[in-house]
């Protein structure tokens, strides 16, 4: 009971503070929009030249959405470092409030933000030729929410441990960038040499990207959908567990 109430209070506060700083929403969208506008048409030209029959944007946008979700969630720890510095986290830890709610309230704010960004991206991509399957979009958004819950808590755990932006930035980049490159968001992994393909297969994000592509193209029979959603759900449970422990014992 208290956990739900406290989660809602922290969610409201975090949302309010985020909406007061719309800069971050715009920054988060800047990069994917540049990819959409400056890289998407190139990809389309390349695929039609190669004689591909599928729509390049229906292949490219799902990967882009995953990128927005991963980067958005992975960098959310920066906000927590600021809150640690202001003494806000410590002040709340002296109250009897639920420790789990400190994590969940913030993570749900992150999920809300990335779903808003994803929706804007999808709408912007329609004029470029993206074909939208409503049911597929809904399940993709669910997948993105799971990705948010998988990466935001890990970012918070890193923030609570490192307590410094200078240490967090290289860590996040060092993990998120290879994960995204290996997931085949820019070019099909089918073009990769065998060793790169097997590495890519071990990356859970690859299956999330494949799942999103299947969903956007109405390939409901694809086994990648269940695999991608399942992997992200498992990762989300693990991350939330790790991070709630970090919030409970955070000291200094």
């Amino acid at each position: 009971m208290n956990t739900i109430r406290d989660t809602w209070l922290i969610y409201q506060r975090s949302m309010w503070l985020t909406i007061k700083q719309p800069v971050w929403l715009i920054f988060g969208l800047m990069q994917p929009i540049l990819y959409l506008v400056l890289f998407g048409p190139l990809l389309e030209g390349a695929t039609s030249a190669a004689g591909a029959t599928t729509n390049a944007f229906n292949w490219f946008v799902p990967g882009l959405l995953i990128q927005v979700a991963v980067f958005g969630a992975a960098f959310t720890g920066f906000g927590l470092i600021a809150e640690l510095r202001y003494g806000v986290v410590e002040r709340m830890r002296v109250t009897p409030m639920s420790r789990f709610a400190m994590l969940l309230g913030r993570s749900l704010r992150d999920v809300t933000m990335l779903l808003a960004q994803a929706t804007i991206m999808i709408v912007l991509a329609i004029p470029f030729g993206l074909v939208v399957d409503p049911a597929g979009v809904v399940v993709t958004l669910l997948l993105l929410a799971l990705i948010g819950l998988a990466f935001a808590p890990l970012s918070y755990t890193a923030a609570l441990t490192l307590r410094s932006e200078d240490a967090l930035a290289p860590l996040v980049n060092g993990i998120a960038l290879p994960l995204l490159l290996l997931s085949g968001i820019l070019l099909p992994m089918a073009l990769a040499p065998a060793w790169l393909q097997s590495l890519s297969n071990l990356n859970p994000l690859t299956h999330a990207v494949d799942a999103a592509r299947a969903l956007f193209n109405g390939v409901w029979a694809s086994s990648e959908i269940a695999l991608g959603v399942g992997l992200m759900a498992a990762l989300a449970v693990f991350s939330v567990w790790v991070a709630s422990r970090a919030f409970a014992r955070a000291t200094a």
Partner: protein
Amino acid sequence: MTTKQGTGGPMIQTHDLRRTFKSRKSEIEAVRGVDLEVQAGEIFGFLGPNGAGKTTTLRMLATLLPPTSGTATVAGADLATEPQTVRRRIGYVPQGGSTDPAMTGRGELVLQGRLYGMDKSTAQARAAEVLKALDLESAADRGAGTYSGGMRRRLDIGLGIVHRPSVLFLDEPTTGLDPQARARMWDEIRGLREGGTTVFLTTHYLEEADALADRLAIIDHGRIVAEGTADELKRQVAGDVVTLGIDGDIEHILQTVRDQPFVREASSEDELIRLYVDQGDTAVPQLIRILDGEGLRANTISLARPSLDDVFLRQTGRSLREEPAA
């Protein structure tokens, strides 16, 4: 929401409280066996230089840091086994502030009340009450980032008392405040005591401990070196303090005055000789006569009642005043 527990008995009691910080190579014993008793309704001062273990002790008592060993009861609840009860009964105002600059004072206070379990309208009414009591009404709906240092500190205190705690912990409440804001903060803290709140504050300002605390403990290198009322502690120093300013042969003069029967203790520090004497007013003329007789002279001579700094000096061999003001 007022928390009540049985009256009588200490509000805070610690037994052999210790905290060791381990890093890869070294162990730092920040707090090395602290025994304290704080009575209900008093302002208890915790005086010591920076790094003495004040904040570490405070954070342990406020449930933020688990002790390495030792026990404590705070506001009638055991720190180790009933931390949630302790949390409900205490308020804690950290040293570095506790507000987000983008949040309004009112917004922070309402949220804080709600985190202590108040419903929305109760939290709003209580926030308005606290804003009024701390004279923050005109700034209530501005971002805390626009507040002056003194206002932000008052808001921090407000966040600590929203739920009417039995004990309020204040970590260096006036560090960084100008003299007016400091005097104002002292009044607020005394007001809290009048309202029945027990106040436990840390400070490295002698004047603050002297002026504000009903009782105090002096801590150095993680250990309590003296405890009592300011007057009791000063009496232990035994008598008055005469300070001689010397630029000649300080060792010879020290030897000479130390041998006098009315001098209890003598020590030198740079170009100063510090004497503890029973009766300062009769000691000064005698000292002048003796030095004259020996052909020695002092440049300056001053007489003072002992201060808390003398207490600290006597217990630790160092002066608290050597700490540069933060």
